[in-house]
């Protein structure tokens, strides 16, 4: 464009504005991360003093000095023992069916829509489903089994979608190679597709478990009692889990201020567990990415 002084000064302004906005965007991005930092610092300063061996290994108590979260941890672990296999089986089977058998059919798009809608249903609604169906209709009460089944349905879409993606990314030529050897469809899926998709599936699995570990609302709706002292020993037992304990302690912190510290200490435990799980997921994802 033909140069003139107006053009030149406009150019300066445009460049300046570009620079200014660039730093504005950057700063606003930092805000989000800043909050993350504040949150972590706040929780750690409040809770770290209460986090010690006896806190991890003793039972719950109303007395904050004596309270420990052994039963809470065991409850969470046992909840995951239910959620893990149930979600894994349902999720992978659904994904295989959608990707390998129902490809492009109407039924597939129906289930697909259904799953993506399910993923958007608020967790508290899953709580109502669990309360009505598992707790009352099946008479499972607020047992680990009832909680686990509710949670499984809640995180099912995550596993299905992740597994579908993993299965889809297995190159077609591997399937062809297997069929070319006279393998049947199921043999091909079981021996070629699933092993190749496994890292992706596992990543999805871990992510879904880490979602389940932190979910609170469905358990609150199921009616987990405030104080449970015995350590659960079977999946039919009543239980309490990390997030629900955080909730109750936060709620009662008004009456017993030390409970806020217990909540913070429990949050640290929860965050560490999640951090380890997510690191594992990232590790798996990077280690096994794109091998063909």
């Amino acid at each position, binding site marked *: 464009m033909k140069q003139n002084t107006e053009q030149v000064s406009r150019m300066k302004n445009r460049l300046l504005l570009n620079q200014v906005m660039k730093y504005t965007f950057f700063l606003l991005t930092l805000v989000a991360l800043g909050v993350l930092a504040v949150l972590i610092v706040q929780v750690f300063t409040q809770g770290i003093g209460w986090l010690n061996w006896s806190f991890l290994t003793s039972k719950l108590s109303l007395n904050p000095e004596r309270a420990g979260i052994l039963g809470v941890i065991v409850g969470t672990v046992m909840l995951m023992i239910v959620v893990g296999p149930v979600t894994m089986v349902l999720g992978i089977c659904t994904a295989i069916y959608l990707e390998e058998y129902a490809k492009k059919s109407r039924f597939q798009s129906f289930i697909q829509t259904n799953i993506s809608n399910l993923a958007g249903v608020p967790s508290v609604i899953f709580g109502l489903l669990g309360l009505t169906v598992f707790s009352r209709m099946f008479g499972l009460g607020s047992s680990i089994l009832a909680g686990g089944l509710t949670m499984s349905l809640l995180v099912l879409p995550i596993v299905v979608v992740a597994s579908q993606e993993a299965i889809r990314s297995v190159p077609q*030529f*591997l399937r*062809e*190679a297997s*069929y*070319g*050897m*006279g393998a049947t469809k199921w043999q091909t899926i079981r*021996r070629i597709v699933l092993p190749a998709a496994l890292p992706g599936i596992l990543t999805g699995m871990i992510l879904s478990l880490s979602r389940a570990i932190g979910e609170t609302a469905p358990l609150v709706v199921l009616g987990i009692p405030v104080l449970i002292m015995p350590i659960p020993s079977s999946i039919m037992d009543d239980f309490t889990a990390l997030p629900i304990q955080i909730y109750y302690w936060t709620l009662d912190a008004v009456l017993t201020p030390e409970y806020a510290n217990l909540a913070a200490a429990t949050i640290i435990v929860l965050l560490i567990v999640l951090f380890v799980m997510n690191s594992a997921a990232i590790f798996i994802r990077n280690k096994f990415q794109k091998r063909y």
Partner: protein
Amino acid sequence: MIRISEKEGTAVVADAKREIVIDTKALNLWYGQDQALKNISLQMSEKQVTAIIGPSGCGKSTYIKTLNRMVEMNPLVRINGQILFKQRDIFHRNYSVEELRTQVGMVFQKPNPFPKSIYENVAYGPRIHGIRKKKLLDEIVERSLKNAALWDEVKDRLNENAYGLSGGQQQRLCIARTLSIEPEVILMDEPTSALDPISTLKIEELVQELKKDYTIVIVTHNMQQAARVSDQTAFFLNGEVVEFNDTVTLFSNPNDQRTEDYITGRFG
């Protein structure tokens, strides 16, 4: 084990006494509305190499994939006509595709080993067909790799991942994998087009060797390759067989003007 000792003359006149292994009769094939194969009739004889040549899009891959019914993985495909494999109609409902494919093995354009160890790649076929014994599997793996001229290069690293091999080695591994279930026929769809010249040469020598035991159908873009390795050659154009003859005759004295134009590089 030096297996490729002397190069034999490749141009063998089609041998009328050999048994016909694959007999294609008036085969038509459509992808949806588009006809990709038109009234194909071809015979392939036992322990002979048949080359299929023709310009891009003429239907070579489609035809070769029809021979082991892989083409049907595309739901749009409609077929009529007949293909007899050792006198049996391959489209007959009593003939399962799995059975057909164990007898008609296939090697693809791009080497496609499984993301498993070299050993497991070769053992895959026998395993899915119910062979469990470790000792027998070991023997099959060794023999197949030897027959694919790969054994010496990999015998010390059988448990390494197949993706660590070079492209040419991977392609020979895929051949070994095909050999492991002892098919009658081996289909090869441009098996060397993704390879460097030296690997190509190795594969060509291997084909020469394999034809002692197997009937081979090879698709190739490369006319020199067709001339070098095959006994008979079919020239495809727009889904039709323009000319089918023994290789020497087809290249030295083509019957059809289009064949001549193609082999002299005037199009394609």
